[in-house]
Each structure stands twice: as C-alpha cells, then as structure tokens.
C-alpha cells in the first residue's frame, strides 16, 4: 500500500517538474524581452495549462502529508523561508496571467511579478533539492539546522542550475508552440542555455566528488545508475540534431527525458530514504489505515481521472498557438 503512494508521489513530482518546469522557464525567459507581441505570444503558449501544472505541486504536498506526515512536517518546516518565497513567487506569477490584461498602467508591475516570481520559484525549488542532496542536519528524526540550515553554496548553485534547466525546458516549449520571432529567439537561446547547463552539471559533479557527498558513494555502489546519464547523453545528441534541423516538436521531449533521467538518478540514489540519508520510506509512512483510506477513493478513482483530464487538456490545446486565433 505504501509503495502505491510512493509511486503516486513520484509521478506527481515528476509531472510537476516537467510541466510547471517549462511554464516557470517561460516566465524566466519572459523577463528577457520587452516586446509586447513576443510577451503575448509567450504567455499564450502556457496560458491554458499553467494552473493545471501547478496543481501537481499541491497534489504532491497533500499526498506527502497524508501518506508520509513525518516527511511533510520535517521538510516543510526546515525549508520555511525558501517555501515562503516560492509561494509568494507562484502567487505573483499566477495572478499576472490575468491581471496584466486588465490594465495598461500597471502592466509593468504585473509583468515584473511574472518574471521575478517565476525566477524566484524556480531558484527556491533548485535550492531545496540541492540542500537535500547535501543532506539536511537531522537528529532523531527532527530537523536541527535552524532557520538557515538549508543554506550552502552548493544549494545556491543548484538553485541557479534549476533556473537554467527550466529556462531550457521553456525555450523548447516555445519552439514547439510558437512561430515567428519567438520561435527564432528560442532556437538561438537553446545552445547557450544547454552549454550553461552542462557547465553547471560539471561543477556540481566536481563539487560532489570533492565534498565527498554520500550521494557519490551511492553511484559507485549502484553502477546501474549510470544508465541514466547514458540516456541523457543520447537525448542531448538527439536534441542537438533536432535543433539544427529545426524539428520543432522534438527538443522539448528530449530535454524532458533528461529531466526525467535526472529525477530517476536522484530518486534511486536516495532509495530507500525519503529524506536522504536520515528518514526512510518505512519510517516516514503513516499508519496503514491512512494510505488505505486514501487508496479506495482518490488513489483508485480520482487519480486516474486527473491523469486523463491532464491528457485531454493537452490534447485540446495541442499544436501551434496562433496569436490571431486567440481573439475569437
């Protein structure tokens, strides 16, 4: 039963990263242009689906609380300030979608909120992952690090890295959904973002080796994990070729595959820990009756419906966004 909820949680988080990732990434790229036509096109590429994307974050949050209360309590309280800023960022960027069209005078303010909020939210998510990889100070199942226990150069580095990664996902989504200038701009950005992301990965790897992080031992103990970097390399090669040939549909899937591989690497190298390397799935699990109660309603019936609904809404909004069609 508890493994069922581990799987649901993993699916929710992965979906969140892949879906809200491009959405936040477009928010970051949005700040790079001042041109209203471009900005409008960029927003149109995510407007129909951004809200649904963010729902997966809330789903992951409540599943965590219901099935793994210890992890929910420990992590959310440990990451108090990063989560606060992430929420503020998500709120500001969320309302900007609607509010910027209600006003001419204040549009600059909401746009700044959109770009800034996306950047802050992405950075905070990267930072929390970095802090987890580096291990939070935890004793006897309780966080002991104080209000800045998550702060470290490595965590900050991961924050920057995730901003780059999301921006890359965002650029690939723009290529997929847009035409004209926005598509061209995105194609120009992809190589730069990829190189920056690669450089970041190298630095992180060196840092992890030099810092003798426990994750590295995991990689050595479990050599099958190297299948993930192998997948990533193949995906990167395909992505590069598709960018060169201007095959609009391909790059997003390839970068998404790289993200999924990275997610898989982390998940399996943490296994069986939920908070590396102090609280295991077993220790974190709620008593049997909780996940059982969740399974017979939301797990068995509602969750598949949610997946179906997500698939349908992406099918409805498939294809290129045509700015003129948006008005009728």
């Amino acid at each position, binding site marked *: 039963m508890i493994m069922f909820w581990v799987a649901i949680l993993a699916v929710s988080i992965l979906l969140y990263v892949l879906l809200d990732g491009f959405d936040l990434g477009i928010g970051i790229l949005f700040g790079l242009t001042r041109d209203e036509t471009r900005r409008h096109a960029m927003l149109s590429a995510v407007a129909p689906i951004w809200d649904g994307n963010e729902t997966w974050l809330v789903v992951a949050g409540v599943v965590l609380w219901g099935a793994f209360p210890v992890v929910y309590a420990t992590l959310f309280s440990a990451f108090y300030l990063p989560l606060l800023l992430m929420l503020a960022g998500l709120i500001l960027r969320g309302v900007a979608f609607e509010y910027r069209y209600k006003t001419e005078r204040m549009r600059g303010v909401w746009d700044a909120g959109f770009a800034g909020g996306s950047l802050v939210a992405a950075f905070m998510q990267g930072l929390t992952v970095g802090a987890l990889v580096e291990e939070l100070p935890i004793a006897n199942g*309780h966080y002991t690090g104080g209000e800045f226990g998550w702060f470290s150069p490595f965590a900050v580095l991961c924050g920057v890295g995730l901003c780059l990664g999301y921006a890359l996902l965002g650029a690939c989504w723009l290529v997929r959904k847009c035409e004209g200038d926005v598509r061209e701009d995105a194609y120009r950005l992809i190589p730069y973002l990829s190189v920056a992301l690669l450089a970041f990965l190298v630095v992180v790897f060196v840092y992890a080796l030099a810092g003798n992080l426990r994750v590295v031992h995991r990689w050595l103990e479990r050599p099958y994990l190297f299948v993930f970097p192998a997948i990533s390399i193949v995906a990167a090669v395909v992505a590069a070729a598709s960018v060169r040939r201007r095959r609009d549909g391909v790059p997003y899937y390839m970068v998404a595959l790289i993200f999924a591989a990275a997610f898989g690497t982390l998940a399996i190298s943490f296994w069986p820990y939920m908070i590396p390397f102090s609280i295991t799935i077993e220790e974190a699990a709620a*008593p049997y009756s909780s996940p059982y109660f969740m399974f017979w309603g939301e797990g068995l019936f509602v969750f598949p419906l949610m997946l179906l609904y997500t698939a349908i809404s992406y099918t409805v909004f498939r294809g290129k966004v045509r700015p003129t069609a948006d008005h009728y």
Partner: protein
Amino acid sequence: MDLTALLLSRIQFGSTIAFHIIFPSFSIGLAAWLTVLEALHLWTGRPVHRAVFEFWLKIFGIAFGLGVVSGIVMAFQFGTNWSELARMSGPIQGPLLSYETFTAFTLEASFFGVLLFGRSRVPPWFYLFSTAMVALGTTLSAFWIMANNSWMQVPVGYVIENGRFVPNDWFKINLSPVLWVRFPHMVLAAYLTGAFCAAATGAWYMLRGIFAVEARIMLRMGLYLAAVLLPVQGLFGHLNGEYVVHHQPSKMAAIEARWHDEKPASEVLFAWPDVENRRNLFAITLPPPLGSLIDSDSLSAGEVGLESIPPENWPPVVIPFFSFRIMVGCWLVMLLVAWVGSYLIHKGRIEQNRLLLWATFLSFPLPFISILSGWVTAEVGRQPWVVYGVLRTADALTPFLTARTVEISLAVYCVVYSFIFAFGIFYIYRLLRAGPEGRLVLPPAAAVPNRPMSVVDEDRLTPAARHVSAGE
C-alpha cells in the same frame, strides 16, 4: 505584548485563512445560485435568466481564482509553522485534506472549463449538469475542510500511538455528528452570502434605476431565499451550540461569559467580561432559567462556569464572547431585511421603498462579517487547544521557529495579499458596478478551463465579436 513565534504564527494562520475563507464562501453560494439560474433558463427559456447567469459567472470566475490562489498557501502552512501538529495528526488530517485537493481538481477545475467555453459545444442539459458539478465540487471541498476542522474541534475515531494520532475508524471521523451539524451550518452561510450579494446588487441597480429586469430577479431570488434559509440557519446555529455545550465546555463558558457554575443558568446578553476579576462589567442579564433553555433546551440544566475549568485551559474570553454576538447580531439584521423585503416584494411595493432598497444594498457585508466572526468564535474559542483536549496550540508549533522568521513571512504575506486582493476586489467591484451590460455576451474563446479569471477579459473581444454576440 511579547511577539513570540507562537503568537505571530497564530496571527499569520488566522489572517491568511480569514482572507481565504471569504472567497470560497462566496463561490460555494454563487455556484449553487448559478445552477438554479441555469435550470430556470432551461425551464422557462427567458433570456433574462441567461443574462443574469453570464453576469454572475464573471464574478464567480474572480472569486474562484482568488480562492484557489489563497488556498495553496494553506496547504503549506500546516507544515511550515505547525510541524508538530502536522507530524502527529498527519495520518488523519493529511488524508482528509488530500481528498479535498483531489475532488476540487476533478470536479471544479474540469467542469468549470465547460462553463467557460462549452456553451456552444455541449447540449444544454450537459451545460446544466456541468454547472451542478461545479456546485457539487465546491460543496464537497467544503465538506472535507469541515471534516478536517471538526476533527480538530472534537477528535474522534483515533488512538494515540508513538506520539501520533492513528485513525482507527474513518466512519466515525466522516460521520461524526459534530461534522454533520457544522457542515450544513457552513454551507447555509455560503448560500446566504450568495443570496445577499445577489439581492444587494439588485437593490443597487434599482436605486440607480438601471437593469430593471435583471435587478428584480436578483432582488426577488436573493431575498426570498434568504428569508427561507435564515431561520434554518438559526436552527443549525443552535445545534452547533449543543455540540459546544457537550464537548467544549470552556468555549461555551467563554461565549456566555459565565464565570460560575449555575443551575439553572442565567443568560448574559451584553457585558464587558473582566477576566482579571472573573466578573462581568455593565452586564445586561436575562434571569434563569433562560441560559439553560438556550444552551441545553432545558429549564433546569446546570451550566459549567469558567471557574470550574483550570485557568490554563481558558480561551481568551473576550474574543469569543464578542465575535459570537457580532455573528448573531448580523443574523438578526439579515433576518429583518430578508423578511421585511420579502413581504414588500410579495405586496409588490419594494421598488418604491427606497429605505429598504438601501438597507438591502448596505447589508452585503453582513454575511461575510458573520462568517468571519463565526469562525473566530469556533477557532479562538477552541484555544488553548489546537486539537481540543488533546494537543495544545503551543505544542503544535514548529519547535525551532524563531519570531524573526515569522515576522518575515507575515510581512511577505501581508504585502503580497493586500496587493493582489485589493486589485481583485476592485475588479469585482468594477464588474458589479457595470452590471450585466453586454447582454448575452459570449464568453471570449480565449477563456480556458484552467484560467477561471480570463472569463472577464472582455476587452480582449474584438469589436466584431462584441457586435455579433450583442445581437444574438
């Protein structure tokens, strides 16, 4: 007063949830009202029902959106500020709140998409069905939230193992009699909110002499509904009092400012509770056995006073005492307006009676005030417990949380909330003021399922589209 992390966290949770509850209570009522309008439209075929529907759908969009945004914060705050509560009660509260998220996602979000741009794509019966599903979704959300809160008020169906609450009877938790009087109380409050907002808007238009047909519908439906529901609400309010008497004597004693055990008890109407000296100043008191009659439906029942409860288990007496009276006061004023108004409508004289139209118009804040003061009574009255009788609020706090951290977060929430909500409320006001102007304006095709608020982007309609839809 010393601003500790505990007090600041309570202020933060209280203010963010108070802000949040305004929007769902509005949208639960509105969703039901939209369902009724759409059913009337199908049944009578009168275009005016359609016009009123489209108009309130826009308002619903904004209220719904703001409710979603402010609700996300709530899902995180249990973990950030109240991690000990989250750890201990997670096995019970977590599943209840996860059901809330899951049902909200499927019913509200997906069928709301049909409401926004499915009018021309689905058969009329399915459109009505979708409206009803949105209403059901908002009501189910309210159910799970009330299940969660009722468990904190009167915990049932659990055992304590290894320092955490382990659920051993989900039927008890979901069928708790406490839940089943509190849930209707909340839903009725939401319906009354919708009814009064509709009636007040209608009265406003009548006073300004515009949209006469729509205004009459809003006023009639709003006031008639309120006139029927208010006595029912009074009954459920009374039933809520009964559970408090049985399960939460300290809350009841504070609400009644009853310091000593009394048998039969008197009833304090108004007073200034002097906590230090354990007495009431300037009290207006009804003689016994009226207190017993009101609290226990009995002429001779004994009622518990605060003195037989250890002071460390007292709630802050003054707050529940006054918030309860504010709630009841609002109810009485609403009852007066709704009954007199309904009588005048029945006699066909309401449109000439400017005094009553003004009273109806100005009464729109009353349901909001009574919902907020009712929640303050319930939540502050439960103190010092977070799970009544079992877990103290002070012990639920994240242990290492410092006052400085909460000062930062409270400041951030205040700035962000006042900024976005001021704008949202201003926008609702502008829509209400403008009224159902573009009769039968089709929702812009740019409106999409997951962007509830985009339904109001009329400025994005091209002149041609506006023309076509206005001529329909």
